[in-house]
């Protein structure tokens, strides 16, 4: 009967929204657990990362402003449903590419995370040098960072300077897209304040720089992972809230429709009986 078809539509919709709500709720709890672990592991990683960057800050090494080769390492992950995490990094990278190509520099991009590849490859495909997958499923390790660094160093792209773009974790509800600089061996060796440092030969400097590169990538991976989990927690939380709102509204409409259907039936019966 037509009336019960209408009610059936409602029940189907209600059931599917309730399922979605269950899914987003459980995703939120999983994200919360992963976030707690990521935040705990971020603390030592931050000390480690700031230690690695200390040299560049204390020796005040600045990149030279001449046309050269630039590399951008964008750090995100493979999975979505985490708010504006990936699009924030992609936006910054696109702006940087526009700036640098406008200033006549050559730019290549290393994508760490499949989502970033998806966002960039259509419009900036010719700038992409490396893609890394399987990021985000498990907490990042130092080994992961060293794989990325090794591939970059082995790619043969001799960059003069670069930057790592990632989401820096600020708090459970906030993160910020941040950049950390990378310098080539030449820039570091020729910087003025490096003369203060004693007994540095090319080999030691090269080893030191390679290690520092891995450390910076490691820091970016950890920060990015923590930001992502907290953003996913927030996103799934609002999704569950929206779903329950929809369920409430639908239930009310459903009940009203049900009552209207019953009333109509009654009226038909009564008016039919009266006609007899």
């Amino acid at each position: 009967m037509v009336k019960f078809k209408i009610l059936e539509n409602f029940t189907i919709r209600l059931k599917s929204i309730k399922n979605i709500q269950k899914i987003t709720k459980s995703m939120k709890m999983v994200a919360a657990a992963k976030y707690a672990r990521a935040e705990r592991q971020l603390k030592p990683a931050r000390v480690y990362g700031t230690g690695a960057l200390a040299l560049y800050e204390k020796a005040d090494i600045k990149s030279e402003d001449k046309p050269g080769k630039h590399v951008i390492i964008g750090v995100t992950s493979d999975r979505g449903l985490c708010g504006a995490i990936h699009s924030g990094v992609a936006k910054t990278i696109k702006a940087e590419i526009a700036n640098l190509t406008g200033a006549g520099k050559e730019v290549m991009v290393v994508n760490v995370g499949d989502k970033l590849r998806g966002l960039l490859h259509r419009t900036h495909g010719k700038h992409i040098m490396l893609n890394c997958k399987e990021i985000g499923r498990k907490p990042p390790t130092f080994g992961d960072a060293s794989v990325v660094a090794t591939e970059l160093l082995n790619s043969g792209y001799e960059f003069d300077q670069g930057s790592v773009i990632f989401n820096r974790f600020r708090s459970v509800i906030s993160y910020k897209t941040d950049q950390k600089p990378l310098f080539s061996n030449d820039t570091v060796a020729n910087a003025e304040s490096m003369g203060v440092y004693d007994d540095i030969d090319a080999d030691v400097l090269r080893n030191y720089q390679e290690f520092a590169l891995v450390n910076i990538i490691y820091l970016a991976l950890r920060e990015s992972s923590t930001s992502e989990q907290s953003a996913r927690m927030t996103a799934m939380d609002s999704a569950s809230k929206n779903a329950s709102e929809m369920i409430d509204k639908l239930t009310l409409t459903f009940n009203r429709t049900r009552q209207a259907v019953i009333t109509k039936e009654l009226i038909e019966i009564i008016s039919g009986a009266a006609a007899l």
Partner: protein
Amino acid sequence: MMAARFLRRALPVLRQTRSYAEAASGAPQMSFTFASPTQVFFKEVSVKQVDVPTLTGAFGILPAHVPTLQVLRPGVVTVFGDDGSSTKYFVSSGSVTVNADSSVQLLAEEAVPLDQLDVAAAKANLEKAQTELAGASDEAARAEVQISIEANEAIVKALE
């Protein structure tokens, strides 16, 4: 003669002020940070001395050490605290930076306190690595096995 006496009184006797040289304005404290990717051992702590094993040899770092960058080799790092106590750690590799402001960043790829290492396991690994060296064929494999031998030898030496 009157003029001379007058002069003598008029001119104040210039006394040469002598004093000791200023005490060295507090020896710069060493701000020591020692961490591995997963663990922080010291964070900007003031210590007396740190001994590190580097590719160019082992050396000790005291406050006001000349700035330098070094790469670590597998070996023992000894930290002498301000109170005279010393703690030893085994590090696999990494880097050490001594800056002009006497801050030291020791970043190790893997670092463990010595008492967490098992000398029997280290000896077993060393023997295994030495037999593997005979069978290793290409450059990369040889390099890996040699790294393993070097690290295990250093562990065994540190624990004995």
